[in-house]
């Protein structure tokens, strides 16, 4: 994260070179903390590249955010002209002047009024500057554009000597100063101001490539400190200047294992974790008319339903158009717009250069702080840049979004119907999940097939599902694998009907068999019953013989006992014992 880097590095360097934050978005990151405190900085560039605005913003932000009063010495525009020019940026110069936070002094030098009659110096300028600084205790000073002195006064020798003295004076005063200068033919400034300012030089540039203008900023030199050395695009809009430190990329962002739904339940089921990871980037690619925007809108809709803020960057359709179109498939995005959860940001790709789009997207995201972002479609950006440009822009965008833990969904139009392993923008390797929607043409109709090309960090289905857009929204249906391959649409329906018929027939067949079985069972059961009764009667027969025997035996015994008793009424006990022995032997 650049700001982390900034804070740690500035701490490390604090004893070497104190820095004054400019308060301009991004600039402090590139300069790793700001401009050198107590030293002059040269800001140079051609006409209309934003020198005055940058320096004025430095003063205003200093006064408003860092409580550092500032003096703005204008050589070009009058104080009220300046105030009018920046009123649109929300800078109330008059109020700040009344509060004694800033002081604007307009120095006008008109050659037609001036006659040089001998030796002179610029002490008047010094007195005014000194007075202005002392009257409000200024810490910041801007001289815009001091080169105008050269047009009003002719004695170069004096001017150069005085300029040198001026920079020394500013250093002695301990103010952090910005001096602006017009870009020269071969030198950085027309009058070679860079000779005098050796600490920090910032070059602004306004370039037009393919009829699209991009402003860029570069730190030419910054003595005694680290700084970004690249050209950074910057944007001037209603919030002033924002510079984008585009190449401060690192791969050390935090990750989340939170998951959330894609808005299509069937799609969630295809992902083992029941949805996408928070902070991941999802690419939806497909040929024209495959429903990429619908997938994206459903993703948005779902996020809003969860109460998350969502930002929809539309490069193709207007917000009203998207809302209308989505209503036709049962999604009411208007309610989310009304409740402030959903914000559209529609712009024509050709409005800015790519870098400016990136800056604008950054700004919009920073302001709205959404959790979910949709870009629809990224392919349109190709119209304003080459493939490699678009790729590098998207790399930076994804990096930024991941750093902010924002989940992003891109849609991309595949220009050819052959499935490419690589998207046209070459971002497929950057994204965490890639959904591919492709046309399946068969039997004179076109259907959509959706599959998950990749999904980092989770198992996912490898099946192609039929992607159906209906009045009730989006759904995925299992496609049928028939003998001729994948079946979709009406072929699938036919196959389903066919199988249904088969099912009925089979059910019937099973019924017949069941009944037969039942009958057989009944027959067998009755057979078993008859056998059992046969067995019972035989058993009874047998039992009967046994019982008769036993009864006979008992009766005989009883009879014998009776006879014995009758016979031996007077026989002794021993006889009776003999009798017992006899009976035992008998047994």
């Amino acid at each position, binding site marked *: 994260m650049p700001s982390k880097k900034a804070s740690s590095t500035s701490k490390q360097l604090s004893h070497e070179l104190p820095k004054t934050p400019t308060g301009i978005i991004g600039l402090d990151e590139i300069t790793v903390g700001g401009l050198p405190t107590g030293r002059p900085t040269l800001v140079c560039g051609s006409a209309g590249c934003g020198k005055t605005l940058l320096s004025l913003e430095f003063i205003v932000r200093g006064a408003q955010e860092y409580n550092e009063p500032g003096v703005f010495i204008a050589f070009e525009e009058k104080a009220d002209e300046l105030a009018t020019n920046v009123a649109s940026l929300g800078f109330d110069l008059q109020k700040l002047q009344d509060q004694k936070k800033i002081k604007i002094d307009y120095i006008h030098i008109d050659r037609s009024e001036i*006659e040089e*009659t001998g030796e002179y*110096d*610029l*002490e008047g300028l010094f007195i*005014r500057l000194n007075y202005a600084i002392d009257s409000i205790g200024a810490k910041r000073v801007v001289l815009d554009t001091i080169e105008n002195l050269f047009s*009003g*006064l002719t004695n170069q020798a004096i001017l150069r000597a005085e300029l040198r003295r001026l920079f020394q004076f500013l250093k002695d005063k301990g103010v952090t100063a910005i001096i602006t200068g017009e870009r020269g033919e071969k030198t950085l400034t027309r009058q070679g101001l860079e000779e005098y300012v050796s600490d920090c030089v910032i070059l602004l540039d306004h370039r037009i490539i393919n009829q699209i203008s991009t402003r860029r900023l570069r730190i030419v030199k910054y003595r005694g400190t680290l700084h970004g050395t690249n050209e950074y695009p910057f944007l001037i809009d209603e919030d002033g200047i924002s510079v984008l430190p585009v190449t401060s990329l690192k791969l050390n962002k935090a990750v989340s294992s939170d998951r959330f739904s894609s808005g299509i339940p069937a799609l969630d089921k295809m992902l083992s974790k029941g949805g996408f990871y928070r902070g991941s980037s999802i690419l939806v690619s497909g040929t024209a008319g495959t429903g990429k925007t619908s997938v994206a809108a459903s993703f948005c809709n779902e996020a809003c339903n969860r109460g998350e803020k969502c930002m929809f960057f539309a490069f193709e359709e207007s917000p009203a158009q998207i809302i209308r179109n989505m209503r036709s498939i049962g999604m009411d995005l208007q309610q989310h717009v009304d409740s402030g959860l959903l914000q559209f940001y529609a712009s024509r790709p050709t409005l800015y250069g790519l870098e400016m789009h990136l800056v604008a997207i950054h700004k919009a995201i920073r302001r709205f702080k959404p959790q979910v972002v949709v870009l629809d479609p990224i392919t349109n950006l190709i119209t304003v840049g080459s493939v490699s440009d678009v790729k590098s822009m998207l790399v930076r965008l994804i990096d930024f979004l991941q750093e902010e833990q924002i989940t992003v969904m891109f849609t991309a139009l595949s220009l050819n119907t052959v499935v490419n392993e690589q998207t046209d923008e070459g971002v497929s390797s950057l994204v965490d999940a890639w959904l591919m929607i492709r046309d399946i043409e068969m039997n004179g109709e076109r259907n959509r097939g959706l599959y998950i090309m990749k999904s980092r960090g989770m198992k996912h289905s490898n099946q192609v599902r039929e992607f159906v857009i209906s009045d009730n929204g989006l759904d995925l249906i299992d496609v049928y694998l028939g003998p001729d391959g994948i079946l979709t649409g009406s072929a699938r329906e036919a196959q389903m009907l066919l199988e249904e018929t088969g099912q009925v027939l089979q059910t019937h067949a099973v019924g017949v068999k069941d009944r037969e079985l039942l009958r057989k069972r009944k027959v067998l059961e009755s057979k078993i019953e008859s056998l059992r009764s046969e067995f019972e009667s035989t058993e009874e027969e047998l039992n009967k013989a046994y019982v008769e025997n036993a009864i006979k035996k008992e009766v005989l015994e009883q009879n014998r006992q009776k006879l014995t008793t009758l016979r031996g009424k007077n026989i002794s006990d021993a006889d009776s014992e003999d009798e017992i022995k006899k009976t035992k032997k008998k047994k």
Partner: protein
Amino acid sequence: MVTDGDSTDWGESEEMIYKLRLFVTGASPASVRAINNLQNILEQHLKDRYELEIIDAYQQPLLVKSEDVTAVPVLIKKEPTPLRKLVGDMSDTDKVLRGLGLL
């Protein structure tokens, strides 16, 4: 020095009162030279027809601002119009006279 400005006759330059302001910076060499040179020229060409105010820029920073002074010494000719600023130590008499509209 003649003072009554109301009697200025625009038709006759002879009668015009020159209202002049000279900004100097303390007693710097250029300032001293400017005062001396200017007074010589004025006495020679505009005797009794001028009002000269000599202002030390260090003492009057607000006046320096309101008169939009950058280079010093500077002589500001407020009247007669047009406004002219004569920068320097007034050593180039021709230029001073041209600046004052006397040549």
